[in-house]
Each structure stands twice: as C-alpha cells, then as structure tokens.
C-alpha cells in the first residue's frame, strides 16, 4: 500500500495519534501497512540505530558542554529528537539530498560530515562546515523554513534530470507558519517534485507552543496541497524509518511530495542562550522523558534476546570517542585570517570587493607592518 492509496485525512484515522511501531515500553506494535517497510530491520540493524542515537546524543551533550566552557558561541541542542533525525536520515539513499535547519546535528553527522564541520558554524569560524555536494546536505539554514523551497527546487531539478533520487526538507513546527513552507508545498505539489517535507514537531518554537502555529495536527496541512500527510511517533526510530522510506519511495516513483509530521519533543532549550523554565514546566518534561527514543530501542532489543549489556558498553565507548574527537576538532579550529572575510562574496572577480580588501589590508598593515594573509586565490594584499 502506498501513501497515495489513502486519502490524506485517512492517515489520521485516529485523530491525535500517529504511526507507532515501538511503544514507550519497547513493545513492538504491529502495523500491517508500515511493518513491510522495515521488514529488513533485524536486531543487528536495530542495534545500529541505537548506536547512532546514542552517539548523536553524546555529541550533542558535548556541544552543550563546549558552549558552556566558552569554546562555542552557541549550540542548538537536539536532545529528544534523536529518533526523528536518525530514523529519517537512515531512510535516505546516498544520492538523496537533505536540506536542514540548524538543529539537524544527527543528519549532518550521519551523512559523514567530519567533527570540525559539525562545530565550525557554532564556533564562529565559518558559516558552514562542509561542502554540500560532498555530503548531500545543504548548508544549515537559520532563516526559518527557507530551506523548504530550496529542497523543492532541487527536487524539481531531479525530476527534470530524470533522476531517481529525492530531496528531503527538515524544518520544525514553527516553520510551518512561514510563507516559504506553504509556498514550497504549492510548488512541490504542482510540479510533482520528489521531495519529502519532514517536520519535527518538537512542540516548541523557542517559547511558543505548537498550538500557536496550528489548531490542528500539522500533518493535516498537507490536505490543502493535495499531498499525503502522515503523523508519526517521532520518538520511535523504527516508525520514522518506515514512514520516511515510504514517502521517499513515493517520491521516487514520481508521485510527488509528502509531509511527515514527526511528533517529538525538544528536551533542552531552543539554544544554549534560551531558558525554557520561563515558559514550560517540569511535569511536561517528565512526561516526555518517559517516551525517550533511545530507552525503548534498548528495551526492544532486550526483548529480542540481544546482548544489551554488551551493546551498551560498546556504544558508550564509541560515543565517548566521538565526543573526544568533536572536542579536539573544536579546539583545533583557529580563527580564520582577517582578510578571508572578503573571500567568496562573489564567484567571479569583483572590483568593489577587491578594492575594499586591498584597503583593509593597508589598514591592518599599520599594526604589524604586513597585511594579513587571505585564504584563497583572491587573497593577499594587492
């Protein structure tokens, strides 16, 4: 069965509920429609998903620590959203392309971005830490929702290129109020673009609850754009993997876009500059802690008779190594040369920028007698 076999609201046959394959206790809930999409996920594969989530949670904690220690200017924690991000990114094929916001640490990590790339933006040494073409992940987007249009345009290009790849756009519940997101829905629907809109509804847009963005489930936004909307337990990595695979396959078959609403929770602050105690209370946090995305996978594996203790031990070691690498990479990022501020404003030589570079070099030379070295072919004093 495909998404298009259902009418759009049919995906919400249980209003307020969602697709769930592993419940909070780790019990496997069978779903005739979605089980086939994860039929290949055996205990070993579940173990890998568990490992992914533990590592990104550890990397995230390290990012917070580095910010608290003054090594990063800011950090937007993903804690609580590990399953939504890992389940979806692991559904992608290698040549699919992801367009993310700024919180998708797990997506960038899973696509092979090296540690220094994960922290460069937040250390302030670069606006982006990686080459998008190398990892098939666009530069992180801070303007809320803008990347939904970029993913759509990329997907339109895929279609015109007769590619069987797809694009995925990550955004949050707050972004659904932005015009860019609705406009992306229009373009994607009209051009039958192979794009999956993956909305992580983490309940909060800084201090604003999701109810301020929408009076109904976000997935139902899809109705108005003639695309399927599917609501999934965003803390169930298996269910997220299943629905994302399904939506991606639909896109590859030329049946157009889908909207996935992954219902999850931002366990931490919006960023390290935020104080959630001003707008939400501990009881809500405690309730969501019971729905932890990692604990339930461990419980499921335990039920399957896996060597859980061994997995936990090995994974903790791997996570510790990853965190140490992140820290070392962060501390290894030094300030770029002063004149590199002028690099890449334009792709082609530009008289105006070159003149300003030259003049600033002369100014800097007042202090140490030599202009700073710039970092690329346009660099240096002229």
């Amino acid at each position: 069965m495909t998404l298009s076999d259902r009418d759009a609201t049919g995906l919400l046959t249980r209003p307020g509920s969602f697709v769930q394959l592993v419940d909070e206790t780790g019990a496997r809930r069978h779903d005739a429609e979605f089980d086939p999409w994860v039929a290949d996920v055996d205990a070993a594969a579940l173990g890998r998903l568990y490992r992914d989530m533990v590592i990104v949670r550890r990397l995230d904690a390290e990012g917070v620590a580095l910010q608290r220690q003054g090594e990063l200017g800011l950090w937007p924690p993903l804690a609580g959203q590990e399953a939504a991000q890992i389940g979806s990114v692991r559904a992608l094929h290698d040549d699919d392309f992801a367009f993310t916001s700024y919180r998708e640490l797990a997506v960038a990590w899973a696509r092979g971005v090296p540690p220094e790339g994960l922290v460069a933006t937040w250390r302030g040494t670069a606006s982006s830490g990686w080459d998008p073409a190398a990892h098939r992940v666009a530069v992180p987007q801070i303007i809320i929702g803008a990347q939904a249009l970029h993913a759509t345009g990329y997907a339109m290009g895929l279609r015109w290129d007769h590619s069987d790849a797809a694009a995925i756009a990550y955004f949050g519940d707050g972004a659904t109020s932005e015009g860019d997101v609705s406009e992306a829905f229009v373009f994607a629907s009209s051009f039958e673009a192979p794009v999956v809109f993956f909305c992580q509804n983490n309940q909060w847009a800084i201090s604003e609850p999701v109810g301020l963005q929408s009076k109904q489930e976000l997935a139902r936004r899809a109705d108005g754009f003639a695309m399927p909307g599917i609501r999934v337990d965003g803390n169930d990595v298996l269910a997220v993997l299943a629905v994302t695979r399904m939506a991606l396959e639909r896109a590859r078959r030329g049946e157009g876009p889908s909207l996935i609403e992954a219902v999850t929770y931002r366990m931490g602050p919006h960023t390290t500059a935020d104080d959630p105690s001003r707008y939400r209370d501990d009881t809500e946090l405690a309730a969501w802690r019971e729905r932890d995305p990692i604990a339930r996978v461990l419980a499921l594996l335990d039920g399957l008779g896996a060597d859980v203790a061994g997995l936990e031990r090995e994974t903790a070691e791997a996570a510790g190594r990853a965190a140490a690498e992140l820290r070392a990479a962060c501390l290894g990022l030094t300030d770029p040369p002063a004149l590199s501020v002028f690099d890449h404003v334009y792709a082609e030589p530009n008289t105006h920028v070159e003149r300003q570079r030259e003049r600033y070099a002369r100014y800097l030379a007042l202090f140490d007698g030599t202009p700073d070295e710039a970092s690329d072919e346009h660099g240096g004093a002229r």
Partner: protein
Amino acid sequence: MTTLTLGKALNRGLRNALAADDRVVLMGEDIGTLGGVFRITDGLQAEFGRERVVDSPLSEAGLIGTAVGLAYRGFRPVVEIQFDGFIYPGFDQIVAQVAKLHYRSRGAVKVPITIRVPFGGGIGAAEHHSESPEAYFAHTAGLRVVVCSNPADAHVMIQQAIASDDPVLFFEPKRRYHVKGEVDEEASLADAKPMGIATVVTAGDDVTLVTYGGLVQTAKDAAVAAAEDGISIEVIDLRSLAPVDYPTLEASLRRTGRLVIAHEAGQQGGVGAEIAASLTERCFDFLEHAPVRVTGHDIPYPPAKLEQHHLPDLDRILDGVDRVLGRANSLSEVEA
C-alpha cells in the same frame, strides 16, 4: 545587423542562452504559454519545452527559493519578476539566500541565478507597476546589479548575466521595450564588452551626466539640447550598478569637473547618493561644483496622471546641469 526592439533583443538573447546551455531554465509567472506579459519570452516554451521555460505558481518567494534549490542541483535559473513592484515577496530569498549562499558555503555552491525585473515608470501604469527598486539590491553584498538601456546591450547583457556564476539582478526599462535599435546577433559573446563596464554614449567636455535604464535616452536628448546652448555634456550609461565602473566615471569627471547623476528612483539612499559620495572621495580635487542629483522624489510612486511630476525629464536634467555649471537654475535662490 538586425533591427530589433529592446524586448525582442532580450527574447533573442534568452533564446541563445537556452540553446547554448541546457542547464539554463526560465521560470516565471505567465512566461510560457503567454510569453510573458511583455512577451519577452514569446515562443520560447514552444521551442524549448515546458521543463526549460516554466510557468510557475504565483509566488515570488517560491520562484526565487526554488531557483536556489535548482542552483544546488547545477541549473542556471533565469527568473522573471513580472513587475518591479512585485519583487518584494521574494526579497528575503534574494537578500538572505541568493546573495549569501556562495559566501556561506565558502565557495562550494555557485548561485548563477539571473533575476529579470522590468522596472521604472513612464507607461501610465497602475500602482506597483512603475517602481525602481534597484538600490535595495545594489546595497546587498553578493548580488550583481545591471541595467540595460538599448537593444544591442540588452541582447548581449542578458546572455552575460546568465553566463555569470554570480547572481545578477537584471533590470529592464519597460518603457524602452518597444524602442528599436541595431543588434549584431552574430557577434561573439566572448568579444563583447563586459556587463560591468559603463559606456560613454555621448562624448562631452563640460559636464559628466551619469544615468542608466530608461533615462539614458532622456540624457542623450538633454545633451543635444544643451549643445545648442554651447554646453558639452558627456553622457555615461552606467550599465552596472554593482559593482560600479568607477574608472570610466573618474576619467570623465577628471576632465569635466562637474557631475550630474540622474535616476528615476528616489534620492534618499539611492544609487546616485553612493556614486556622488564615491566620486567625491576619488576626484575631490578635480571638482568644480558639488555633485548634483536629479532623481525621483522621495515619495511612493504617484498615480499615473502625476508621474510626469515624479520622473526626471529632459528639462529637469538640464536644470541640474545648469546648477552644476553655476548658472541660473531652479535652486538659485535656495541656500543649501
């Protein structure tokens, strides 16, 4: 040489670009079946197909934002904004995304997007159809801003803009769309003058008159009229507003010592303000008079029956010329 209108010259230039590079795609509202409200893309969808010349939903942010995604995919999108005053819904995608992506990605992502904007007044149009928003974009680092004023330039410059690896705001003076001129359709693009270089369209010795777009012809007419009074005006068609070709302007101003800048857009924070300041910095010792700006007023674009009071015309330009020459002019009795 072929005689073409400016609009047809653009059409032929776009056709060449589509034929030369299969990654070039045209996107816009009504540009396909209809050929655009000004018919600039007439016949191109029929020739190149619906995936090369794309009628888009009515969303400027959508147009620009999907063009960014197409650039990620290696396309060279050419977006038509139907009218100048309709560009603002796409402003965020232009300023925050198009202009910055090459910089943000440290050169990894090229953004060879051309955004065509029919602009300016003088056609008796409704609200939001006669604006000159170029200064917003000239102010934005990462964008190139060019303006064509005649068929020959239009034909070449649109191809150069599309071939550029940088994003280009391409302004077309809509009141000049129907004006004819000679176009060398066989000329090699490689030998053409770069779009960043200004053109001295009328040589002169007494005053340097700088303008662009729809006012270039007005300025040439002003030079002819002034010549009858024995005043020799050098008219320079800027062509590029970002970056500005200062060497050409400086060479002229160092000879004339007197600068007039004319544009339809308002004065405050306009292109003329930047050029006046920059040329004063560069040529102060050569100036015989403070630079004079002849511009639209700092008002919302007025109703059609009043636009002749807003747009600089030949007489207002000549009044500015009188002022820069220290002759009697409308402001003779006004201090500062």
